[in-house]
């Protein structure tokens, strides 16, 4: 169960949902601020139960705005992947690298870099989230997450 430090208004329900009122709006900025705290956070629509990652204020599935933060385990399986050999300037020094879409244990999907030996890549690979250590200096100040191999979970 997540304890959010320094947020006196927040409380956690039995389902891991966190009500932080207006303090952490359901925005990308908040999502990446949690990444800087090494937390993978999503949102859950309390009307249709959909998991929304990254979070949004309006559920695209049912239209409800009754949405709460929820902590994600950060584990999942590789749904599909590609190995990038030609990248944009910011990533060109990292090629070749793998990217993929990960089916999270809670049900939502998340894209990202798959940091593993390229020859180990296969659909269904067990993965867990990891976070880059530093906040970028220029905009956007978003700490990247990525996925690394996990034992079965």
């Amino acid at each position: 169960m997540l304890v959010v430090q320094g947020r006196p208004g927040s409380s956690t329900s039995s389902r891991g949902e966190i009500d932080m009122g207006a303090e952490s709006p359901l925005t990308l900025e908040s999502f990446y601020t949690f990444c800087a705290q090494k937390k993978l956070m999503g949102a859950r629509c309390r009307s249709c139960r959909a998991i929304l990652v990254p979070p949004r204020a309006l559920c695209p599935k049912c239209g409800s705005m009754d949405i709460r933060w929820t902590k994600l385990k950060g584990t999942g399986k590789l749904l599909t992947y590609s190995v990038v050999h030609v990248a944009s300037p910011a990533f060109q020094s990292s090629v070749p690298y793998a990217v993929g879409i990960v089916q999270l244990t809670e049900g939502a999907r998340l894209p990202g870099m798959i940091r593993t030996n390229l020859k180990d890549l296969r659909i269904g690979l067990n993965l867990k989230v990891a976070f880059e250590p530093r906040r970028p200096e220029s905009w956007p100040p978003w700490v990247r997450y990525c996925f690394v191999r996990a034992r079965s979970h």
Partner: protein
Amino acid sequence: MYTVEQLKWQNVKGRPLASIVAAGLSKFGKLEGKYSREIFLEAAREAFGGCSNFDPKRDVKALFVGQMSESFEHQTHVAPSLTDWVGLLPIPATRIEAACASSGAALRCAIFAIASGMYDIVAVGGVEKMTHRATSDATEYLAMASDFPMEQWHGITFPAMFGLMATAHMHKYGTAEEQMAMAAVKNHHNGCLNPKAQMQREITVRQVMESRPIAWPLKLLDCSLISDGASCLVITKPELAKRFTDTPADIVGTGQASDTIGLYERDDITFMEVARSAAKQAYEMANKKPSDIDVAEVHDCFTIAEIIAYEDLGFCAPGEAGKFIEEGETGLDGRIPVNTSGGLKAKGHPVGATGTAQACEIYLQLTGQAERRQVEDASIGLTHNVGGSGSTGVVHIFKRRD
């Protein structure tokens, strides 16, 4: 002029919405020293020159133009400048942006402008100037059509988006890399028959397979080209078309749909819901079915995109496109010749120009002007234009005027 009720797609039932009376295309390729406005003039002059009893300054009442990116030329607000360069000031001019589907979406705006009765004659086209930039810069600008916070930010390039789709399609259906390669081989063959095409070179499946990886499983020869080019059409009310040409082509169906900008948000990435939905609208409007289509231009930005297009358009069942191309069904002498122009793969893909360039090729096919790549007795044509990883889909159906 239609009433609103008649324009609802279920009620059109094959009646022409608007008619193409002329089509123009610049040369596609590396047009050194020429920028968008100069390239667009080439396409517009060819289109305007294709009409008789026509004075563009007098007759064209509005211009709709597709362009994807202001990054290539450091220029937004291109519509007035293009209008000026082709000598049409002060008519209203609007740029429409839907990534690689920009001019497909612009064509819809032109159709609305005509079908609503607002204008009798409009011009619609597209342009992109890309080749003066380094490949890595072009890679970055094109990736801007994917989701910045979740995809671009994590190094997922545009080819990688389609690489993710290809891996999923291969896994679900057993589609082979060699089958994808066959789309490139076919389109290069067709490109050799199109003097406007950027690539005039036959390739083999083996060459595709051995080309360097870009975003595995996609290799260099699975990818469309970085191109300069422009396209332009003159569109009129159906009843005026014969005044300007003996050989108009009628637009009988149009469809468009939107999906999430993030590929990862979609439940199944082995198809594009936008293409299925846009196709359904266009087929219903045109009162046609997939087996009625004589010739099609589909959005082969990567070979896997052409494979998926066959399935989304109903040319074959889901999962069977690999076999469909292997059996030659979409070759020039096949059941449904696809990308007779050479497609994005060989004709080139100046992204903003692509949607109306596809319509140019169908116009040539339906009016018997496609020369060495002419599909015999082509009567019904279709274009399929996709923006981003399938966030926008635009489908049009055209009919020869008999």
